[in-house]
């Protein structure tokens, strides 16, 4: 199968209405994090920032400009003032563009792209460096990290023009993302994670590489619960990502069994992620993406 150069309905993906909703998201995000975050990301290491963080004992060789002379005068104890160092946060948004994201009209991919774009917009608006990657087993394209709100259109163009198609391979994709990243950071993986073996391994690999991975599992409720399709009888199931067809007889029991198995798979993924401190969010495409973004902000699962 040849890679498709454009995602489904790429021209309507980031229209004026979408941009308007992004602006709204930015305003809401600022209100939510006011007083708690100052737009810049703070690191725990001391540096040359402006905000006082702590004291430590003077050691020979320390820059005496940071000696707290007030304490010295009062207590005759040499302390060095430590300041929080301000640095930008590298955000890598990884979008799964495999064929499994393209089923049922590509609703999952479109939803993932919109979430990715929204997150990128919020990140760019907060002066973070935001990079994007579209991955599948067949293709792996990367938008180098950009900074500044004005770069959002490059994000849009990248998402529009990225080739889609191919099998799902979370492990390979995450591995390449980790290898390409010069600086560990927040890595948001948007995928359906329909990869029995490699879904969690890929996320765990990012964690090993000192990334902070967050898994956003984009799901189509109808695919998750095929009893809603009314599908019955003898059918030949074709994997959207290739492979031999399997002839099955779909009975209500079979459909319920798939629904339960799917739910178990998702919960197992969630449990695995949470047990290792990996953020996990389940995103059903029937929920408006902006609602999802706000929920992510509220729960603090993504941005600190």
């Amino acid at each position, binding site marked *: 199968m040849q890679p498709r150069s454009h995602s489904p309905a790429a021209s309507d993906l980031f229209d004026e209405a979408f941009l308007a909703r992004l602006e709204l998201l930015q305003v809401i995000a600022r209100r939510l994090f006011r007083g708690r975050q100052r737009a810049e990301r703070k690191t725990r290491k001391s540096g040359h920032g402006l905000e006082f963080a702590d004291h430590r004992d003077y050691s020979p060789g320390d820059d005496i400009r940071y000696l707290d002379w007030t304490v010295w005068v009062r207590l005759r104890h040499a302390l060095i003032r430590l300041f929080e160092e301000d640095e930008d946060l590298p955000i890598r948004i990884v979008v799964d563009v495999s064929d499994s994201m393209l089923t049922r009209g590509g609703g999952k991919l479109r939803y993932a792209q919109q979430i990715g774009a929204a997150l990128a917009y919020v990140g760019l608006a907060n002066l973070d460096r935001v990079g994007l990657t579209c991955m599948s087993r067949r293709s792996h394209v990367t938008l180098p990290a950009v900074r500044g709100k004005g770069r959002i259109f490059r994000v849009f163009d990248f998402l529009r023009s990225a080739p889609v198609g191919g099998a799902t391979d979370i492990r390979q994709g995450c591995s390449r993302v980790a290898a390409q990243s010069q600086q560990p950071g927040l890595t948001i993986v948007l995928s359906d994670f329909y990869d029995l073996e490699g879904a969690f391994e890929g996320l765990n690999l990012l964690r090993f590489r000192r990334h902070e991975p967050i898994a956003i599992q984009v799901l189509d409720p109808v695919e998750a619960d095929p009893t809603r399709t009314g*599908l019955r009888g003898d059918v030949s199931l074709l994997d*959207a990502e290739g492979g031999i067809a399997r002839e099955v007889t779909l009975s209500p029991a079979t459909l319920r069994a798939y629904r339960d198995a799917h739910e178990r798979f998702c919960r197992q993924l969630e449990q695995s992620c949470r047990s290792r401190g990996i953020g996990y969010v389940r995103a059903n495409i029937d929920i408006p993406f902006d609602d999802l973004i706000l929920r992510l902000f509220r729960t603090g699962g993504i941005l600190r």
Partner: protein
Amino acid sequence: MIFTGWTLAQLAPWFAIGATAVTGLYLLRMRRRQVEVPFAALWEQVARQSESRKIWRQFRRIFSWLIQIMLLALVGFALLDPKPTTWLHEPTTLAIVIDRSLSMSAVSDTREGERRIDAAKHDAVGWVRTLRSMDRALVIAVGETVAALAPLTSDISVLLDTIDAIEPAFGEADLPRALALAEHAVRDQPGPRIVILTDGAVDPAGAEALTACRTLVTPCEVRQVVGPAQNLAITAFAARRYPFRRDQVEVLTEVSNLGDSRAAVLLDIEAGGVSLGTRRLELDPGERKREVIADLDAARDRITARLLPVSSVDDHLTTDLGPTLDDVAYAVVPPLKPLDVTLVTDRNDLFLEAALLSLDDHIRLQTLAIDRALETPPPPELAEAKLIIFDTGAEPLPRVVPETHVVFFDPWRHESGPCPILKRADVTRPFLTEQLRRHPLLDDVVLKDVNIARGTTLTTEVGDTVLVRSLGEPLAVLREREHATLAIGFDPRQSDFPLRTAFPLFIDNIVRFVEQRSPGFVASAPLGQSQELLLADLGLDPTGVTRIRVLTPGGVAQDTPVERGRFRLQAAIPGVYALTSLDGTSVGTTVDVAVNQADLEASDLHPRFAGTPAEELTVMTPAPPASALGGPLWTVIMLCCATIIALEWGTYHRRLTV
């Protein structure tokens, strides 16, 4: 279990074709619908869990094929129309007697334009449809003839076809015979029952039969169809030649208004498609009007009378003619056949011969010399003559005369003679003092002052008619036995009688009298199952005839035996029947006889048993008893088939939901 539908021989090829088609379709690989799924690996897991039903899946197609074959078998079973014997507890043997007399062709009150026979058939169909598998029925149609059209059978289709074919016929219903036949047919059968479907317009014998129906051992029910009784009918129709203008005829038609309101009608007489005359008649209820249309040309020998509706009438008059079967009648004009007259003469009486020759248009005269008349056996001129006139003068008469009409002039000139009217005494110059002027032989004849030289008075017997007397003594005597014998006790040549005008009139009266005594002519015969007719009455010489061929108006020829000049005519439809003698002296001769409905009782549409106990038996609108299951078994089978198909679609194919 009995089967009343298709036979196995009929069903087998269709079942084979269907089973082959079903099997062929199942042998073809069923193409599965392809469904694209995003997570086939998970589907693989789920499918692997249901491997325990693998054996079932392998047999599923075979099971589905068996279901289809079973459905096919069920449909075939339904086509056999099975009827379990266990459903039948008390079989019924039903005799359905349907009146198909003329009155049943009238309209009924049940439905618009429906005939009484149709209403009766509808009711009969209702009875037949209530039959269960063990019930049997027969259908008896009763008109002038009684016929069991369908034998005792449980085959509903046969019964329905038989009922459907019943149409009204001419004549009155012979209900007594029909009831006897019905009772005889079902009396010894299980659950006997008789249903009579009639309009009640029957003859007195039929009404009595309906009354007696209640007393039968076999349960009997009379079901009546009713309708308006208005009817106009031709109840008599005849044509005759004028005796003295034999080329012209007159027609007598009797039209009866059998309805309950005053009616107007057109009476049309036609012959050979040409209308001879039309009369407009107005008749009060119950009135019978006789119309004579005179002076008609007798060029055609078949005349038809029809009743036609009047186009415009007053409001108080009805133009409803009722059933059309009695609105037409036929008549045959008597054939013009000359009378064979043989004159045995000494050839000296030219006056007598001249008088006979003047009647040449309707007699065939043969003169025979006296010496030939004395031959033994008698010559054909004597043997075949219808009238023999002996005028031998002084010559002796033969000792034996043939059995025919004979006129003797002066039979006792000699002491012996063959004349059966015996001599009393010889008289000289007798005076004709008395004559029987009212006798046809003496119409317009006056014998007063006839001078006679000599004569012979005659003796008479009981029954003889004395035409002329001389001072009280019979001088001319007529003896009517099988044949007429007229003895005139004087010789015309010894009188001035031949010189008088009365003489040729007297001779003509003799010929006319004999003609009228000749075998008569039946202008029309009534419609009926079988009636005895005389060939001689139809103008056919019966001598030696043993068979005749009867050609009906419908074109059907049938040979009928003749015994002693009599035969039985079976006339089922009105019209002109042609009778052809197949042997005997008249071999090849054909005569016509008209047969007419002309039955006042048959045309009367009023119920005869209104107010009689028979009416108590009549149930006007009873519903036939309902079937125990509300329908035959095949409907239940087809319902099962539909249920199986629905279940299969709902559980296996589910094509409606995909």
